[in-house]
Each structure stands twice: as structure tokens, then as C-alpha cells.
């Protein structure tokens, strides 16, 4: 009995809402696609809450909390954000199932910040065929910046290739006569870096790079590779590896009492999981690049942006581990989406969202380094492409030099 009444009430509400929606659209110049209304914007997301990459699940939780904060403040242009996030377990078939559920069953307006290169590759064709924005994907592969072939897909963080180009540019300027050796992981991640470096060095690549050494992610140790590289006697070592191997490399070069100039990928700059195990005394003078503020770095203690971030974490994610870089990441990505939705005004069509996302001008989320700004255009679907060089000193990273930009278009 009770159930029947609720059902009828629900039907009535839906009908009223439908009438309100159509008449509202006719009166004002409001435009909506599925998933948006006068009161609500429905955002879909998939994250690996379980499985091998579940450490990243905190990104989704941060985004959920961020939108809760937005809603507490009255939403965006008066509309509440309804953030629907599902677990894909870092498995491409599950990602397809969950994204189809988001699109066809939950009827979301956009799919935002789905994580992982394999999962995003699996859903890219589907979302582009359906003309649904696959906005600010959480992967560093270069292929997301391809507006010509995939006009509904856009990246967010700097791509691996643009980061590598920044190292190349820096080398050309500071050490034009360097003899460079590159150690890279034999997969798409390492190969993207290799390509970026070569492109950045341009004509000088063949003379500057004296050695390219690859390793498999399944190898237990890469000591043998380091010994081999040392024999070629380069004076610059580019370390394009994941955290475990980065720590091994820094340690091994010190053991060999070999002191080349070492440059590390942004992926492996964690003080806790790379620099400390490698030994702080071994890591002195290692270079890298960054685009976001480090939540554990005392130099941001009085930074207004990071203060806001701290307040947000204290209020909406009490008890969370603040040294987790994923929370800085999720905050930055979510605030970029909030900015885009704000810019859309009352025209919440999918086409307009892509248009606005592609017209971000000098947008600076609280968590990005001062001077790093988000810029996009109809031909540039790579929001963040600036980084700043940093040097390891004492027990932390010290930023130095100018903000360098390295835009890379996918071909």
C-alpha cells in the first residue's frame, strides 16, 4: 500500500518536473542536454576503488567531497552537482560496463576524470560516438590531446611527452654539450618520455643522446642496467621510471660513486616513497619538474590556495592522510570542472561544455604552482602543459627557474 503511494508520488513529481523543465526551457534562454536541469547537473565518473590501482581511488573520494562543498555553498549557478562515481577495478571491460551504465541508465551530462590509460582507451570510442564529453581524463598519455579525431575527449595533467620536452629544453639551454643516457621503462609510459625527449632535442638528439637503455617492469632490480650505462660514461642520466626503480637508480649510482646529472620524472618525485628509500644523501642535486604544490612542503604553509585546500580537507574529508598527492590532484581536477560549468551559464548542452572547456584562459586552481595556468583552445586539448624545474636539496624539493611550457599535440 505504502509502496504504491510512493510510486504514484514519484510519478507525479517526475511528470511535474518534466513539465517544469520543458516550459522553463521555452521561457528563458536555457538549454539543457540529458543530465542537466534547473536544479541539478549530473556528472559521471569511474575510478579504481578496488583492484591493483585502488590507491588512486582517493581521487574519486576527493572529487565527491569537493562537489559536496560546492553544493553546500549553493551549487553552480544555482544548480546542485550530482556526482555519480562507480568502481571499474582498473579493468577495461568493467570500465565499459560502468560508463555505459552512467550514460544510458543514470543519464549523466558528462563523464569526468575517468582514471587510467587502458580504461580511457576502452571508453573513448563509445563516448565520442555518443557525443558525450570525456572530460579531463586522469592519465598522462599524450593521445588525449587529439581534438580532430576525438573532439569529445580532453586531458588534464601535463602529458609525459610535454614533461620530457621540458627536460630537453632545459638541457639545450643549460648543458648544450651534454652526453645524455636515457633509462626508460619498456611500455607506453617510458616510450612517451623517450619520444618527448627526442622531439625536444630536435636535430641535436642524435649527437646528444649516447645511450638508450630500457628495462621491463617485471625485472626485480635494474642494477645491471646502471652498470652498463656507466660504462658508456654519459654526464646526464634521464631516469624515466616508476617510483621503485627511480629509488634503485639513485641508490645504485651513488654506490658506484658515479655522479652524473640526474633528472627524474614527475611520476617518481615522492619524497616518502622514492627519495627517502634512495637515501637523502644520495639524492642531493637530483632534478625534476612539478606542476602542483606539495601538500607536505612547508613553503606553502601560508599560501592562500593551500590554506583553502587544508580547510576543505579538514571539513569534508576529516581523518584523511594529507601527504597523499591524490587529494591535491582530485581537488585541482574538480575545481577545473566547476570552473567550466560556471562558464557554461544556463547553456548546459554537451556541445557548450566542450566549447567552454576548450576556452579556458589562464585559469589557476588553488593547488597548482604559482604561474602554472590552465589554457585550452579549439586546437589545444591539453589543459596543463607548464611545469617548473626543481632540485632536491636537504629533505625536500626546491623550485627554481622559470615556468616552462611544452605543448604537445597528438598526431
Amino acid at each position, binding site marked *: 500500500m505504502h509502496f504504491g503511494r510512493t510510486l504514484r508520488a514519484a510519478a507525479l513529481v517526475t511528470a511535474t518536473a518534466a513539465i517544469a523543465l520543458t516550459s522553463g526551457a521555452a521561457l528563458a534562454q536555457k538549454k539543457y542536454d540529458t543530465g542537466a536541469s534547473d536544479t541539478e547537473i549530473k556528472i559521471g565518473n569511474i575510478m579504481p576503488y578496488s583492484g591493483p590501482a585502488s590507491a588512486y581511488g582517493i581521487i574519486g573520494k576527493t572529487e565527491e567531497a569537493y562537489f559536496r562543498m560546492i553544493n553546500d555553498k549553493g551549487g553552480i549557478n544555482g544548480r546542485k552537482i550530482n556526482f555519480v562515481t562507480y568502481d571499474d577495478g582498473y*579493468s577495461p571491460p568493467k570500465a565499459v*560496463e560502468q560508463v*555505459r551504465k552512467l*550514460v544510458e541508465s543514470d543519464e549523466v551530462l558528462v563523464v569526468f576524470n575517468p582514471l587510467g590509460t*587502458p580504461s580511457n*582507451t576502452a571508453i573513448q570510442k563509445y563516448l565520442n560516438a555518443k557525443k558525450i564529453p570525456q572530460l579531463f581524463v586522469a592519465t598522462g598519455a599524450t593521445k588525449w590531446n587529439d581534438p580532430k579525431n576525438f573532439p569529445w575527449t580532453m586531458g588534464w595533467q601535463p602529458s609525459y611527452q610535454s614533461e620530457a620536452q621540458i627536460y630537453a629544453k632545459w638541457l639545450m639551454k643549460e648543458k648544450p654539450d651534454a652526453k645524455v643516457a636515457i633509462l626508460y621503462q619498456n611500455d*607506453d609510459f617510458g616510450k612517451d618520455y623517450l619520444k618527448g625527449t627526442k622531439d625536444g632535442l630536435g636535430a641535436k638528439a642524435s649527437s646528444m643522446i649516447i645511450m638508450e637503455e630500457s628495462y621491463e617492469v617485471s625485472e626485480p632490480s635494474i642494477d645491471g642496467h646502471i652498470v652498463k650505462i656507466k660504462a658508456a660514461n654519459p654526464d646526464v642520466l634521464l631516469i624515466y621510471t616508476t617510483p621503485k626503480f627511480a629509488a634503485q637508480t639513485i641508490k645504485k649510482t651513488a654506490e658506484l660513486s658515479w655522479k652524473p646529472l640526474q633528472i627524474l620524472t614527475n611520476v617518481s618525485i615522492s619524497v616518502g616513497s622514492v627519495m627517502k628509500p634512495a637515501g637523502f644523501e644520495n639524492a642531493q642535486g637530483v632534478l625534476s619538474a612539478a606542476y602542483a604544490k606539495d601538500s607536505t612542503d612547508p613553503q606553502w604553509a601560508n599560501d592562500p590556495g593551500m590554506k583553502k585546500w587544508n580547510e576543505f580537507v579538514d571539513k569534508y574529508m576529516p581523518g584523511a592522510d594529507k601527504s597523499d598527492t591524490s587529494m591535491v590532484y582530485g581537488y585541482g581536477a574538480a575545481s577545473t570542472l566547476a570552473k567550466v560549468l560556471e562558464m557554461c551559464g544556463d547553456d548546459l548542452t554537451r556541445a557548450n561544455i566542450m566549447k567552454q572547456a576548450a576556452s579556458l584562459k589562464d585559469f589557476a586552481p588553488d593547488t597548482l604552482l604559482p604561474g602554472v595556468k590552465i589554457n585550452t583552445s579549439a586546437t589545444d586539448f591539453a589543459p596543463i602543459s607548464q611545469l617548473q624545474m626543481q632540485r632536491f636539496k636537504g629533505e625536500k624539493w626546491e623550485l627554481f627557474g622559470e615556468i616552462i611550457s611544452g605543448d604537445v599535440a597528438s598526431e
Partner: protein
Amino acid sequence: MSAVEDVVTEAPAVEAVPKRAMTLGTGTSLVVLAALLIAPVFVKNFIIFQMTMLLIYGLAVLALNILTGGSGQFSLGQSAFYAVGAYTTAVLMEHFNVNYALTLPIAGVVCFAFGFLFGQPALRLSGVYLALATFALATAMPQLLKLNFLEHWTGGVQGLVVTKPDAPFGLPMSQDMWLYYFTLVVTIAIYIFAVNLLRSRSGRAFMAIRDNEIAASAMGVDVALYKTLAFGVSAAITGIAGSLGAIAVQFVAPDSYTITLAISLFLGMVVGGVGWLPGSIVGAAFIIFVPNIAEGISKGLSGAVFGVLLFLVIYLVPHGARQVAILGQQLAGKLRKN
């Protein structure tokens, strides 16, 4: 020591299931078939996609059921066969422009050969040791797919994107619906094949080996041949399921075929009822939908909730869906008598 040996040798690996009990009655089969035929007309494309995946995982569980329920051999390596099938289809479709329907039998043959060959060394192993050997196969497969000299074909870690086929002859149905009916036809064909296989001479040989290997060989069953044959048939069906999976998901990548898939399939078989073929679909439904339900209950603890639900099922109905079906039958029988 002797106690341990006793346990290892005496406990029957798989409970003996009489072959009649392995299938459904004709009436029930027809009802299920009708439901599967009509349902897609009334639901959204997304549900059709899920139903397609249900049939595909159902096939893969069925394949494992033939191996374990039929011939009494364990396998935690089904994901490897599934991956080989999926990649065979993806490579043929994308690099050689072979029609998707033609890739299925090719994938089946490739996987049959692969399974048959793997069955040779597996002959020397039994019970938990065989499970471990197949486990190694499942762990190795994603890495093998990333190998350098294969990368030109497999796309390495990037995987391969597969084009979804349109309905042929200009039939007025969506790609999803066409693929569902295509999968349904393949599934029914394989189901009928599986039922007949288990009722045939070979099926009796499988079951004789399962129940007592020594007695089987004394009766003249070529144990080695039939054990490897069971592996081959199981691998072939899993491979065809993998092919269909690649077409439905439109993407293959090493991350899709990890050990988690193999364990899910094993789980599906146990939940559906070991040795009861119709249970395969029930098991597939369990591995597709229950994680979603668990996630709905708690996102952070979805794994734990899933564990609790699984535990409940195993505790309450240790023989899986078969037990439920038997209970239902008895109940219906009683009602009829009254």
C-alpha cells in the same frame, strides 16, 4: 602425515553429478529460451549490453564447468584462454579485416590447440597442484601479451580497439541488440554441444575419470587423451567467449585478462553449482551483478561486502544454484500432490 595423505587422496575433488542432473528439463529450457529471446525488446541498450556480457561470461563458466564438473580437473587459468580468444579476434579483425563471425571458429581452434597442448604437462598434476600450474598460466598471460615482438600485433599495453559490427542485411536493430542475438545463437549452439558432449561416449569417459581414475583406465578409457581433450574443449569454448567479449567491449588490453578474471570465473562456477550446466548463467550473473550491488552498499568496503555476500551464498547453499533449483523442484512437486 598419513592423515594428510588420506585427506588428499580420499576426499573426492568434485562431487559426482549424474549426467541427467546436469541439464534442465525441456519445458524449463524453453521458458528460459523464450525469456532470453523476448527480453531485449523491452529494455534499454545498456541492459542489453549487460545481458550480452552475461551470456559471454556464462559461456566461459560453462567451459570451466565441463572441465571441472565433467572431468574433475581444476583450472585457475581460464583467463589465459579467454585472452587468447579475445586477442585472436581483435588481431584478425583489426589487422586482417576478417569478418567478426569468422574469427570465432578461428579463435576456438587456436584455443583448442593451446588448451590441448597445455593439457599435456598438466596430465602429471592433479587437484591443487593442477590449480597452481594453471594459476601460473593466468599470471603470465598479461605479461606475455606485452612482449616486444608481439607488440606490433597486440598493441602492447595500449591494447587494440575493435570495431563493433552493425546488424547485417539492414535489419532495423541497434548494434547492441544484434550482438546480443548473435551471442545468444552462439551460446545456444555451444550449450547444446556441451549437453550432447557430456551425454556422449566422451562425456561418460570424462565422468568416469572424474569419479575414479583407476577404475576408468581399467575399463579401457584412455585417461591421458580424455583429460587433455577436456582441457582442449574447455579452452576452445572459453576462447570463443573471449572473442565475443572482445567484440562486445570493443577493446582488448592485457589489463582486461588478469588473474582476477580467472578467479571470477571459478567463483561463478561454484556459485552456479559445479557440474550443473544451466548454473553457469546463474554464476555469470553473480560475478557481474553482485559486485555492483556490493558497491551500492558501500563504496569503500565493496570488496568486504562482496566477501560477505559470497560467504552467505556458500554457507546457505553450498551446492550453488543447483541446490536452489532442486529445492524449487521438490516444492513444486509437493504443491502438485496437494
